[in-house]
């Protein structure tokens, strides 16, 4: 009986669900960390954050609503700066996040892992730094990860290869290093594999589909240098040691031989 009432209540509430406090917090924090020097974000005001959606209608430019919740946020090519607020994770119904072609800096917040309904993540063509958070794997429905043209460093998390629905993956033109996870570059079965265009433009990235060990932390020249240097050092050291040792033993021997009389029989 109680369950029925609850169900009815939720059903009644759904159609014109007024603002969601989570979405409000999400948008408020995002607007605080993002900078909008060209004032391209119109109507991004507190009153709008409080009530961004009316059913399927969005009052917020760039936001798309479904059932009173923001399900898509698309702020592309607006010359935005600043950083991505970790409180973006409050937009729990977000399925698509597209902030591409801006000048957003900072890191990709680990808290994006709480956007469990996220299917599309496009942060390409920004100035994002730091590593790709491995926690993105927890966004199990991710279909698209597009991080190309940023300043990301570190390695590509192996775990991303476990995203069963991943159909588009692009980390090209970053500063990533290390091996390409086999689960991404050389996927087996029905999973799509990503070709070199997804990985190119990263100087220190190697492994299939890129050339193996293209460039490593130490160049071949450096390794050869280390080898030769240490070799020469050991050569000098060992020869010096041997010379000193020989000198000592020779002196000992000479001292011993000196005891032999010169008047011993000559035979």
């Amino acid at each position, binding site marked *: 009986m109680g369950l029925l009432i609850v169900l009815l209540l939720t059903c009644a509430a759904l159609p014109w669900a007024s603002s969601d406090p989570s979405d409000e917090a999400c948008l408020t924090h995002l607007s605080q960390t993002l900078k909008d020097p060209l004032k391209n974000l119109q109507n991004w005001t507190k009153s709008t954050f409080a009530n961004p959606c009316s059913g399927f*209608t969005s009052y917020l430019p760039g936001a798309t609503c479904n059932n009173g919740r923001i399900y898509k946020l698309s702020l592309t090519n607006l010359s935005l700066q600043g950083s991505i607020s970790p409180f973006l994770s409050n937009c729990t119904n977000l*399925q698509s996040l597209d902030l591409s072609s801006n000048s957003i800096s900072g890191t990709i917040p680990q808290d994006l892992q709480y956007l469990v309904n996220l299917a599309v993540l496009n942060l390409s063509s920004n100035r994002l730094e730091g590593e790709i958070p491995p926690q993105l794997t927890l966004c199990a429905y991710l279909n698209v990860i597009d991080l190309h043209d940023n300043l990301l460093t570190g390695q590509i998390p192996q775990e991303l290869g476990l995203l069963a*629905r991943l159909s588009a993956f692009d980390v090209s033109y970053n500063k990533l290093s290390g091996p390409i996870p086999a689960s991404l570059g050389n996927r087996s079965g029905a999973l799509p594999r990503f070709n070199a265009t997804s990985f190119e433009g990263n100087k220190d990235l190697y492994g299939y589909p890129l050339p193996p060990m293209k460039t490593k932390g130490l160049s071949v020249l450096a390794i050869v240098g280390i080898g030769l240097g240490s*070799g020469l050092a050991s050569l000098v050291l060992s020869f010096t040691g041997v010379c000193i040792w020989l000198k000592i*033993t020779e002196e000992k021997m000479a001292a011993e031989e000196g005891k*032999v009389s010169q008047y*011993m029989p000559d035979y």
Partner: protein
Amino acid sequence: MIHCFVFYETGDALNALKTNMADPNNVLQSWDPTLLHNIKCLPFREFSDLGNANLTGQLVPQLGSLPNLQYLMPDLNSKFQVLLKGTRCTLDVRTPMQGARTLLESFEVLTLSGTVPLCLVLRPDNNASIVGKVDMVLGNLTELVSLDLYLNKLTGDIPTTLGQLKKLRFLRLNNNSLVGTIPLSLTTIDTLQVLDLSNNGLVGDVPVNGSFSLFTPISFANNKLNNPPPAPPPPIPPTPPAQSGISSTGAIAGGVAAGAALLFAAPAIVLALWRKRKAPDHFFDVPAEEDPEVHLGQLKRFSLRELQVATDNFSNKNILGRGGFGKVYKGRLADGSLVAVKRLKEERTQGGELQFQTEVEMISMAVHRNLLRLRGFCMTPTERLLVYPFMVNGSVASCLRERSEFEPALDWAIRKRIALGAARGLAYLHDHCDPKIIHRDVKAANILLDEEFEAVVGDFGLAKLMDYKDTHVTTAVRGTIGHIAPEYLSTGKSSEKTDVFGYGVMLLELITGQRAFDLARLANDDDVMLLDWVKGLLKERKLETLVDSDLNGNYIDEEVEQLIQVALLCTQGTPMERPKMSEVVRMLEGDGLAERWEEWQKEEMVRQEFNQAHHYNHHQPNANWIIADSTSHIPPDELSGPR
């Protein structure tokens, strides 16, 4: 950023719409009627401009003449309902829907209008909702981009034919009473972007393939589906980031460094090991080339291993002495016999093996009681070794001058025997060897003594062995200072007579116990050279001073005098005048010494008379020693010249 959202062919309809609208926020101000005639793009910044603009009024019929108008959709309150950006919808203004209708009725109205809708939104007003079933024929609206039937009272299944709507991007059927399973055909709509099936009575599995890949449990909430959220992959504990790249690089660098270090240190280590092995004994063992059973006549060829064992690996403790040809080691062979092993100096070992063997063979031919017998030899590519029997009593020199307090001094009888034995040995070398062997370094140190104190001449034949050019002229004079004959020193030419000279000096050593050359004598203002010192004493007739004090006077004056006479005869400046070794032997045996001495005394007398013509007084042959100055080794007649 200007978006062209609305295309139209005539401005009249929109103009009519504008005039029919109450526009409190002036959002339609840009809808300039004149512009609307000329341009085909209606500039809205954003759709929500309109959606949020609180426009009220009636839609005008003229909008029906806009066949290509997109996006705008009125709801049943005749408000502008702005749909999602990018949605293309046809507006059919002739069918304002009021009250409850069946879906079929609505659809019929739409199709009767004669236009193919791109967008179908059927929403009830607050008082009514559409009832009925979602009709199969909806599947015929193949141009449909958006199908919004949410918040109605629709019942029945979702028709499979909806999968034919290949351009559909928005499908919202939520909040109805739909039952049955989700048709798999829906997953084939690749363009599908938004799906909402929540709040229905759907059962069965949720497809995860195709376009459904994008959709999360939100789209399927509140149904009776088996596992509404398609099971997400189990969250993986974040594994530590693989450091393989860096660590392998480090490993490579480390490995290369270590390898290079080893590689470069290897020569030094090898050198050290080589020198360690080589330093004490200076030997390379090449046993493969050796055959210990090979005998050259009486000569045994030893293996290097054998000699290494015998001499305790050529230990310094076993060094007996060092001659001009190399070190001599004492050793004990496997059969228990003591040997002296002479290691020839490295620079002396460059000759061919065959040549060495020949020379060794030659030495081994000299077999005599008073000659040191060669027992054998050893030959490796880098080493030449000679093996002699060990002489327990050392050499004459060591017996004379390095005697320990417990050993008795050599008595006179033994000294006589040594003189004779050495002479016999040398005579044998000169006369009975073919080719004859010149010792070139006769001295007390080279006369060894066996267990019976019999003289054994050693160190012979080597000069020849070392000097492969078979001449008696050597590049370097071999010998010991004090023993070298004057003509050998000045011309470098050696002969038997050089040996005779050395023998003479050795006799003096034997008698006096002094060194042939001793700087210590300078302190007493005496002569450095033994020969000069002896001659000086003889002139002063101090025989007692001359004889070795170790004898304690136990000697016979006559015999001493005889030996001195032999020694003086042997050390004459002119080689021609010295006796041969065989003559010396005979003289020592008591045959012909007196005559020879007499003769020489006469000659000396004549010579001295000749030289000191008017200063000569008288002559007493046996009383006075007439002795030529040994340093004036140039013949006196040459000095004076013929008159």
